[in-house]
């Protein structure tokens, strides 16, 4: 295994984060903090508890998940798209690195960045809202599994995209609505029955539900169903990446 190669890609990607701290860290932390201020401290105090949890605390797992998904996708997609755009991808393609090692470098860095950001956001939330973490290990597991899965998804988007617009389309037009409609701000039990059924087709419901369970022990669906859904999505992404490298799709002509 070319560990130096993996390290080179990983280090390069992490350096990009340190170079752009405002964009990579400060910006998502500030924007998510605004949710905590508005929905947690300001409006949240006037809203009733949901399943025995204060509204401000209830929305924390969903908002952390929103940032985690967006950052995982954008970090990984940008990481692989930029070399394609600038032409420096020739180095990676001509280097003695396997597909697995390339993915490990890029997705590993994107995951690290997203997890760091998720933890920073979680710490920041504490400044505005009081919350507890009932199952910290499960919380970490969800955090990491979700970051890996959506970094893989972002990697696929980065390879598929042939312009900056396409890089933005999936996070903004698909992921954001799915997160907002996936129980970030409410429990799906609060929806009419027909909408509850429709909502179950939203994969983000399972992520938020599982993550919230790790915090408060309450969930919309069983914890193992959430874990299973993440693993299914993870497998689908890995399958797509295996196909991309096997065929050279948008990488090797």
């Amino acid at each position: 295994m070319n560990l130096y190669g993996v390290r080179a890609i990983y280090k390069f990607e992490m350096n990009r984060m340190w170079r752009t701290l405002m964009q990579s860290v400060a910006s998502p932390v500030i924007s998510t903090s605004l949710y905590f201020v508005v929905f947690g401290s300001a409006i949240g105090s006037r809203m009733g508890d949901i399943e025995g949890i204060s509204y401000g605390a209830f929305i924390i797992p969903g908002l952390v998940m929103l940032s985690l998904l967006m950052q995982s996708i954008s970090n990984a997609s940008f990481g692989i798209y930029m070399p394609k755009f600038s032409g420096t991808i020739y180095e990676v393609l001509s280097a003695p690195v396997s597909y697995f090692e390339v993915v490990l470098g890029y997705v590993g860095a994107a995951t690290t960045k997203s997890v760091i950001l998720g933890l920073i956001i979680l710490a920041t939330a504490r400044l505005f809202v009081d919350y507890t973490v009932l199952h910290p290990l499960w919380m970490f597991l969800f955090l990491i599994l979700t970051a890996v899965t959506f970094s893989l998804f972002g990697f696929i988007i980065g390879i598929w995209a042939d312009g900056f617009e396409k890089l933005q389309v999936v996070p903004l037009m698909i992921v954001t609505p799915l997160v907002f409609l996936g129980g970030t701000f409410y429990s799906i039990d609060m929806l009419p029955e027909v909408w509850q059924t429709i909502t179950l087709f939203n994969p983000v419901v399972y992520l938020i539900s599982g993550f919230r369970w790790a915090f408060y022990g309450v969930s919309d669906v069983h914890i193992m169903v959430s874990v299973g859904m993440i693993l299914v999505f993870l497998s689908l992404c890995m399958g797509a990446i295996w196909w991309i490298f096997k065929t050279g799709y948008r990488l090797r002509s």
Partner: protein
Amino acid sequence: MQPDILVKNLYKVYEDGHQALKNINLEIHKGEIFALLGPNGAGKTTLISIICGIVNLTEGKVEAAGHDIIRDYRKARASIGLVPQELHTDSFENVWAAVSFTRGLFGKAPNPAHIEKVLKDLSLWDKRNNRIMSLSGGMKRRLMIAKALSHEPDILFLDEPTAGVDVELRRDMWEMVRQLRENGVTIILTTHYIEEAEEMADRIGVIRQGEIILVENKETLMSKLGKKELRLHLQQPLESLPGELTLEPVELSEDGYELIYTFDSQQEQAGVARLLRTLGDLGIEYRDLRTRESSLEEIFVGLVHE
């Protein structure tokens, strides 16, 4: 002896049906400088890209440093350094980080002393902490070479290395390439500057419409295909070519002051003596004579337009 690059029955057809390479067979030996010449779109970059692993081959077999580029791709690729035609760089990185990145990517442990030597050899040491975006075009070109040399390759591909660089830098690069060859590095060069191939190459391959039409030692090629020209500047202008000279490959210049005799450089030079004797017999006097050999460029133009 095992060639450093072995290409056997190589074909490349792109998805749109364009056949870029047709039955390429090529052997490049260790420590030689091989120049690959060809007009735009002939397939030079496709061939290099396949050998380096950037483009998939359609059919055939390629080996680098004795390793199959597909089956044993790690060893094959680790032996190759590539300087691409375009200046692809990460503008926001600094020089040191960019060169170190390539070394790591190619599976080599960090070696600051080697990176320092490469940067010093390429006059980039003072710029090591500068962002790539602040470098001039010539410096970026040198950086591309530094990156390609960062992992100490046995084989170096230079795809149009001196395109757009000034004369001084071009000379510096030629010198560097010679030094690399002295250290045993095999160099494959594509170029539009025939002067470059003439100056540096040991062997020359010519590719046209995806086919290698010729591979030859430079000297052999020049002597085989080269033409020599004898120009005689006359004391008095001639109105027309005398009948005795029409059998010879002789032309008269427009102003009538010059006779131009073209002959094969391999041919016995009896023709020159015969021409001079005939001129003496005809009482045609000349005050100066010059000979010149055709350049590689003229040979190349002749070959690709055949």
